[in-house]
């Protein structure tokens, strides 16, 4: 293959398969964003691999003109780990949802993050089971009515970013399905991050959970409901950036304050530090309507990836071990000769 390398386009990234999500599904926007992003990454197309589990979001690989594997429910992180162990050169993306990644596959998500396998894990959170026709999910808010919870759900929802940080993830971020401008650089950073990068994407399901994220997606409400994170900058929000997040040292809690009121100045506002895990945990817990919800990179603290360490350890062993010789292996230890 000595043909001159031509820059890929969105068209090159689209497979010939008809996209079969419901009209208005947030997945379309995410797909388009990623199809546009991929040619910008310094990765040959043949090294791109998309791996998914089961659910609406997990149909994603069929629509990418890359290598793809639509696997079984919840297990994409485990399959992707095997892919990276076999060939660390591949650029592997895991596409999952709130049911796939946090319910049936919770254990695998926990461990792939803990191990820090070099993957981009995108969790499309629509707070509902779409493909099985609308049952509540582990991220559904208390009181969600669904075919399986006709009187409202009772159990507390899981917060994906809290889960990820708790599991030991070293890159945790959040974006919104239709916010291409926000998501594109975010995913680029997730891609450049060595190790497991976890991105929660708020995603609207127009059929079973429509409008669940309107409070934050609506442009008119965005200023009040989004806390746009920028490393090294004070965490302010509001239509005039007049509000901010302050740490109350007495209660060790975050609080919303208004600059210029009660003697609050910009100096009092907490400055975002991506490498601060405690701060990241507190940010991940912020939710509306009492707080704006953090959008952007909550936590970034890179370390060597699992598969890189695996191969490095193997190299170290090989410096002193014998050659990979089957006959020598069979004759290792005690032998004796007859006749």
């Amino acid at each position: 293959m000595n043909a001159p390398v031509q820059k890929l386009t969105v068209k090159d990234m689209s497979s010939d398969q008809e996209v079969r999500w419901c009209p208005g599904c947030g997945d379309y926007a995410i797909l388009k964003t990623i199809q546009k992003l991929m040619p910008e990454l310094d990765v040959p197309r043949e090294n791109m691999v998309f791996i998914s589990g089961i659910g609406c979001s997990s149909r994603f690989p069929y629509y990418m003109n890359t290598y793809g594997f639509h696997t079984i429910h919840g297990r994409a992180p485990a399959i992707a780990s095997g892919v990276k162990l076999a060939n660390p050169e591949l650029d592997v993306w895991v596409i999952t949802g709130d049911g796939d990644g946090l319910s049936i596959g919770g254990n695998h998500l926990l461990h792939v993050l803990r191990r820090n396998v070099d993957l981009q894990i995108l969790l499309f959170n629509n707070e509902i089971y779409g493909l099985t026709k609308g049952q509540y999910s582990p991220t559904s808010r208390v009181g969600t009515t669904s075919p399986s919870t006709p009187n409202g759900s009772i159990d507390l929802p899981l917060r994906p970013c809290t889960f990820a940080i708790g599991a030991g993830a070293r890159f945790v971020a959040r974006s919104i399905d239709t916010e291409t401008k926000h998501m594109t650089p975010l995913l680029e950073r997730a891609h450049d991050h060595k190790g497991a990068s976890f991105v929660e994407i708020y995603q609207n399901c127009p059929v079973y959970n429509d409008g669940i994220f309107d409070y934050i997606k609506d442009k008119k409400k965005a200023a009040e409901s989004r806390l746009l994170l920028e490393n090294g900058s004070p965490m302010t929000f509001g239509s005039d950036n007049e509000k901010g997040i302050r740490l109350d040292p007495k209660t060790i809690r975050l609080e919303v304050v208004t600059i210029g009121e009660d003697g609050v100045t910009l100096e009092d506002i907490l400055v975002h530090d991506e490498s601060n895990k405690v701060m990241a945990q507190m940010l991940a817990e912020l939710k509306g309507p009492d707080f704006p919800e953090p959008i952007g990179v909550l936590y970034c603290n890179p370390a060597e990836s699992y598969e890189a360490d695996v191969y490095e350890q193997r190299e170290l062993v090989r410096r002193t071990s014998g050659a990979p010789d089957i006959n020598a292996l069979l004759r290792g230890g005690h032998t004796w000769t007859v006749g």
Partner: protein
Amino acid sequence: MSVVEDLASTSSKSRVVCDVVIRFAGDSGDGMQLTGNNFTEATAIYGNDLATFPDFPAEIRAPAGATFGVSAFQIYFGSEGVTTAGDDVDVLVAMNPAALITNLGDLVNGGLVVVDEGAFTAKNLVKAGYENNPLEDGSLDAYRLMSIDIGKQVLEAVKPFGLSHKFALRCKNMWTLGLVMWLFERSRDSTIDGLKKKFAAKPEIADANVAALNAGHAYAETAELPSGIEVYKVPRAEVAPGLYRNTTGTEALSYGLLAGGQLASLPIVFASYPITPASGLLHTLSDEKQFDLVTFQAEDEIAAVCAAIGASFAGSLGVTSSSGPGISLKGEAISLACATELPLIIVNTQRGGPSTGLPTKTEQSDLNQALFGRHADTSLPVIASSTCADCFDVAIEAVRIATTFTTPVIILSDGYVANASEPWCVPDFNDYEPFPVEFASDPEGFSPANRNPDTLARIWAKPGTPGLEHRIGGIEKDYETGDISYDPDNHQKMTDVRKSKIDNIANFIPAQTVDQGNESGELVVVGWGSTYGAIRQGVKRCREEGMDVSHIHVRYMWPLPSNLEALLKGFKKILVPEMNMGQFVDVIRSQFLVDAQPLNKVSGQPFKIREIEAEIKAQLESQS
């Protein structure tokens, strides 16, 4: 034990026997497995044929003196072909009352029992359930008894090394081993070398153990042994010339996987999750990083098989291993590998079930699971290893079939084959024919659904290959394009082709042979897996008595060899012994419409030779 001749005239009393069964039994902390392994190595070096049976409790350190904590190691060795660990015990070493009470029933009348009398305390007797001390109440009169306060002897022997009382007493097993080695004229050299290597960092521990070993040996040599106790001479076995080593099934299977990987020119990703008695494979392979191999201890059984599938998708050979309960968890993913037609090897080291069952005991009750234990029509090849050494070739065969036909393959081993050891005439790897995998590389006319017309194997195109970008998955795919398809006729066609591909493997495996006896006749005993040794000996003994009985041992459990039906139909009667309630016999009956009869045993223990013999006789005597 068969006595050949008494050699009363020699200076030390000794007699020649052609085979002996020894069982070492003690607390799980007494080091009986180590003792047994050392004796095995010395016996192999001496030149006897042998087979072993380690039998240990599920508890790691059961309370001292408890009957459920007894760990035993049995070795059968002799001057003729040995294929089982032996039926009855000739020599029993019992390190405490619990070991005696749980093992005495297997000792032959007149057999030798060596006990540590220091361990026969009132407390230990109660724990074992003895009302009276068996060393004193005459209940051992039917046996020859060597009652020695081993603890006292050991403390004396290791005094110069200044060990604590606790550490000094840990040398009891080596003292006992020294004594038994004298009885059978084994050399202590390999044990001494082993101890020095094992305790290289703690020379005083090594020296104390060596001193204990020598003291036990000297004790036997110089002490006035009770009448009837003498040195046994077991003549060397006449075995085929060659280079030998001892191997467990676990080792041979691990090496076979590595060898298969080289023959296929493929790297291996071995992903597993700890489970008794399968973990040994993960341990052995994790220590062989010089090979083109990555091992991965996953978070659970499902992740293990999924990582292996991911590795196969990416162009390595994915291998996973477990035991029955773990294989249940892997079932859904194995079906995914069937649907996506990726190579995958699943090793099942079977144990007693159902559920947790008898984790450290052996059984063959996962055959139905291997053949049928998945959702939907997911036929896949199943092959079974019959002996420790056979595991090597079975593993290579599994790699060959998985890669040639792009399919998951299940290897059935079991706790007995995995843990037992036997001498192995080491093969020359250069004699094995390579079967290198060729990945797809040409974008011209490429479809992920393309098949090899002979094998029906789906094309294997790995990520990283330019121009072959494609998607696979669990949804049914179009026969031509590999795209998602819900078309009814296409689903029928795809199901048919997946089945045909597996059925067709019968044309690519060796024809079934008859292990022993004629190719037709009155009775054939059909076995599979680790019952090989017991069936072989049982049939041999019956044939020596003139009975018309043959032995067929099946390796390829699915698809069955294409000549098996004709072979079986040449016999008037078919007997199928299995360590389950009749799983293979059902397969044979349903596949060939023959009146095969079962012989079942699920006690967690392997078949005894005489159990096979008795059933052969019963079958031949009964009127059909």
